[in-house]
């Protein structure tokens, strides 16, 4: 705060106040705070840095361990160019681009981001981003309810368990056009949803069928077949996808998805303990007016030169108030810029290369682990970057046993699925080396030999 005492005196005089306290006389005395806030004393910058850095030093970041943890957040390398661009203050310290003539930088970057998401998903229109994967799934369901004027949701159990929890929470109040009806969960078997069960679950009240590929447990779902099931029932098909997987796996637009959503954390976003990340959403042109959140379009200025603006704002809360398609009034603009720069860094060739590299490494580790006595295959069929195995002991025990060796073995699937306490979910990014994977397999073998051999299992 720049004011000197003299500035304050001059300014008080200019506004006709006798003191700073005098400025607050419109607050009734009985709701004024008559004591200082009970907070710790302020700190110098050096002291602040010391205290907060000490907190950071108490953490053991996964990025510095041999981490096989995934489950929606992946330890991909974030190139320096991403940090360099997003830390430019003209991007970092700007507001939502309400004055387009002075915000062409962020507007054009969002337009480019929308283009990149359309390319990835094979769909026509992308919004400017959403909070995260879980809230994007909820928004997709609202969109489907508005489109179909139905209120049922059929969601595969292979959709991230926390996305499903967010969906249940945020639709509890019901929503525009009567969503909040029954949410039916279709069980998945060894990482894959049964199409027969899916067919049984949909009916004439189903607004959306939501399936994730790869599934939370790593299976490559039959998305084209599921889309047909949804469409036969007059429902929209919502595909929850991993953006890096789209370097290798078919684009949602090609298998009939009406909405593609997901979390773009794998695109150049630090894991950052779960946020900030960003959700993405893309749809065919016919659904443009139902999209939630910000949307940037290209237009011309008074002289006929091209430029960019926020558009279709009549969908939004600041115009439509209670009739808006969503209450969202921000996006994750800086995260969208990071995702865009990352995709530009990877490029047309790099994305498939990265996806292939992850899948090769995952395949290698799966082979190695299945050679360990007692470890069995769990995820059915081919996988992309993540797979689950069945262990002869609780997965939590393995995670705890390998932690002191600097290995994060993966996620105990029992945390989210009843009866899955012996299932370990394992992710492999390009950052894992063969040496690290061999060490993981050996450490697991050694632990299991002791644990099962010693009769403690």
């Amino acid at each position, binding site marked *: 705060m720049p004011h000197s005492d003299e500035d304050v005196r001059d300014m008080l005089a200019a506004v006709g106040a006798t003191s700073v306290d005098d400025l607050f006389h419109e607050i009734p005395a009985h709701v004024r705070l008559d004591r200082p806030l009970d907070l710790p004393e302020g700190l110098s910058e050096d002291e602040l840095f010391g205290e907060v850095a000490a907190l950071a030093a108490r*953490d053991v970041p996964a990025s510095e361990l041999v981490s096989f943890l995934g489950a929606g957040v992946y330890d991909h390398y974030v190139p320096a160019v991403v940090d360099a661009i997003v830390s430019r203050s003209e991007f970092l310290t700007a507001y939502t681009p309400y004055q387009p003539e002075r915000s062409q930088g962020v507007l054009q970057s969002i337009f480019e981001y929308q283009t990149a998401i359309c390319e990835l998903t094979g769909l026509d229109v992308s919004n400017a981003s959403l909070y995260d994967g879980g809230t994007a799934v909820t928004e997709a369901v609202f969109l489907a309810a508005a489109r179909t004027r139905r209120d049922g949701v059929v969601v595969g159990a292979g959709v991230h368990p*926390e996305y499903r*929890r967010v969906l249940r929470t*945020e639709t509890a109040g019901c929503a525009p056009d009567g969503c909040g009806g029954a949410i039916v969960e279709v069980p998945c078997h060894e990482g894959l949803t049964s199409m027969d069960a899916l067919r049984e679950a949909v009916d004439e009240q189903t607004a959306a069928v939501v399936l994730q590929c790869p599934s939370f447990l790593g299976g490559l779902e039959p998305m084209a077949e599921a889309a047909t099931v949804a469409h036969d029932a007059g429902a929209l098909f919502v595909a929850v996808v991993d953006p890096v997987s789209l370097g290798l796996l078919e684009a949602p637009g090609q298998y009939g998805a009406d909405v593609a959503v997901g979390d773009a954390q794998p695109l150049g976003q630090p894991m950052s303990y779960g946020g900030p990340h960003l959700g993405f959403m893309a749809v065919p042109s016919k659904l443009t007016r139902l999209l939630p959140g*910000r949307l940037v379009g290209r237009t011309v200025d008074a002289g006929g030169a091209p430029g960019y603006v926020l558009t279709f704002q009549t969908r939004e809360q600041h115009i439509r108030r209670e009739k808006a398609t969503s209450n969202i009034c921000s996006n994750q603009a800086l995260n969208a810029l990071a995702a865009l720069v990352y995709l530009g860094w*990877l490029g047309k060739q790099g994305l498939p290369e990265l996806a292939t590299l992850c899948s090769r490494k995952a395949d290698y580790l799966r082979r190695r682990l299945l050679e360990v006595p007692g470890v069995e295959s769990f995820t059915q069929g081919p996988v992309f970057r993540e797979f689950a195995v069945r262990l002869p002991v609780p997965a939590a025990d393995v995670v705890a046993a390998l932690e002191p060796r600097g290995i994060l073995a993966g996620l105990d699937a029992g945390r989210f699925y009843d009866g899955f306490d012996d299932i370990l979910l394992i992710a492999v990014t390009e950052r894992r080396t063969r040496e690290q994977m061999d060490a993981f397999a050996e450490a697991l073998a050694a632990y299991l030999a002791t644990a099962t051999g010693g009769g403690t299992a």
Partner: protein
Amino acid sequence: MSAHTTIFDLSRPGRRAATLPANDVPDLEPSEPIPAELLRSSPAELPEVAEIDLVRHYTRLSTLNYGVESGPYPLGSCTMKYNPKVNERLSALEGFRGLHPYQPDDQVQGALLLMKRLEGWLCEIAGLHAATLQPAAGAHGELTGLLLMRAYHVAQGRSPKTIIIPDTAHGTNPASVVLAGFTALSVQSDERGGVDMDALRSVVDDDTAGLMLTNPNTLGLFDEHITEIAELVHEAGGLLYYDGANTNAVLGRSRPGDMGFDVVHFNAHKTFGTPHGGGGPGAGPVVVRDILEPFLPVPVIVEASGGEDGGEDVALRFEYDRPRSIGKMRTFYGNFGVLVRAYAYIRSLGAEGLRRVSDMAVLNANYVLEGVRDLFGVPYDRRCMHEFVVSGEPLRQYGVKTLDVAKRMLDHGVHPPTTYFPLIVPEALMVEPTETESKESLDRLIGVFRAVVEEAESDPDLLLEAPHELPVRRLDEVRAVRQPVLRHQASSD
């Protein structure tokens, strides 16, 4: 290169920036090959560029943008204050940015302690009892708070349907109300800009689930009847929701809990100085009275009792077993990277510094109001708090609207205020200078207002055709809707 060249236009086949590690695993046939029908049929047409192309392109785009570091940014209700540099350095520490959300609790004690302390400070600032850091933004906090109110009523065996909202409210309020399954009921303002008490009395009844209020409101005025409003709503069985968008006016001066509010959301990116990022990421922590605590989203951070969950080095852990919880508002725990900056902001200022934030924010707003009050209509002539609203109606005599004033201010090198909000003031200009602008900067801003109004008198076309000095002239928003171009097309140039 023309001004609108995109990264896709720069693409040249075979060019690249990325370096990826070599494949170090044996090149075997996959044990389970991915069937051809699941494989991508044609590649995503991402740009093919070198790293220098990327850096030059986005550096150029950044120069077309305007941030707090470019100059004054008096955008009302948005609190565009300076974002301290050290907070960026802190949030980038690997011990924060490298954490995975599913790491074992013993590896994340620093992060948990930071969040636990931040919760405590937010409770003290709000004058309330318990907090969740989960919501990703202010509007997301609103939805969280309303779902908490809903859960509370349901637990009481009631299902009131109406949420009362003054006509000065942010557009997110009614949109969030509908999303939470309530009905929004608008109540008008009185001649002093506060809630009209007679109008309020006539609508509060058994069906009143609650009332949402921003205080000071979007006119920058403190509602003097707040205690009476709270009593009225509470007596009917309703709850009070505080939209914390304007908390920058009252830090250490008055607390929402003491005013009678039961739920508060803060906008970390406004009040606690975290950068807005061109529209996000933000953070919208929610603080509640004790009666609402059982319903908070999971997980909540609790002290480990040292039992089976924790060894000696586990002091804090996440608690999921909360049967009355509304559930989960976000995939993980919140925009943690933003919360680190908010922690650092509050910690560096302390109680005294936070109070000075509001003192100087209010002083600055009043100073600018004094400097421009003769130029515009002043619909509510009271002491303003951290922002004020004036009307551009007097300029209509020159054929000039508020929109034109805003566009011409851009030519003068400052960001204009919020325009056409709140809706109840015609041709509204909503000005929030914030505490981090110096007297000289405020004088410059006042000077720009004065110059633009003089130009309106002498040469209105200068305003009507503004901006003149920017990379683009006034943009055709109607065409953007009628002929939508929402993505780059290779053939579009």
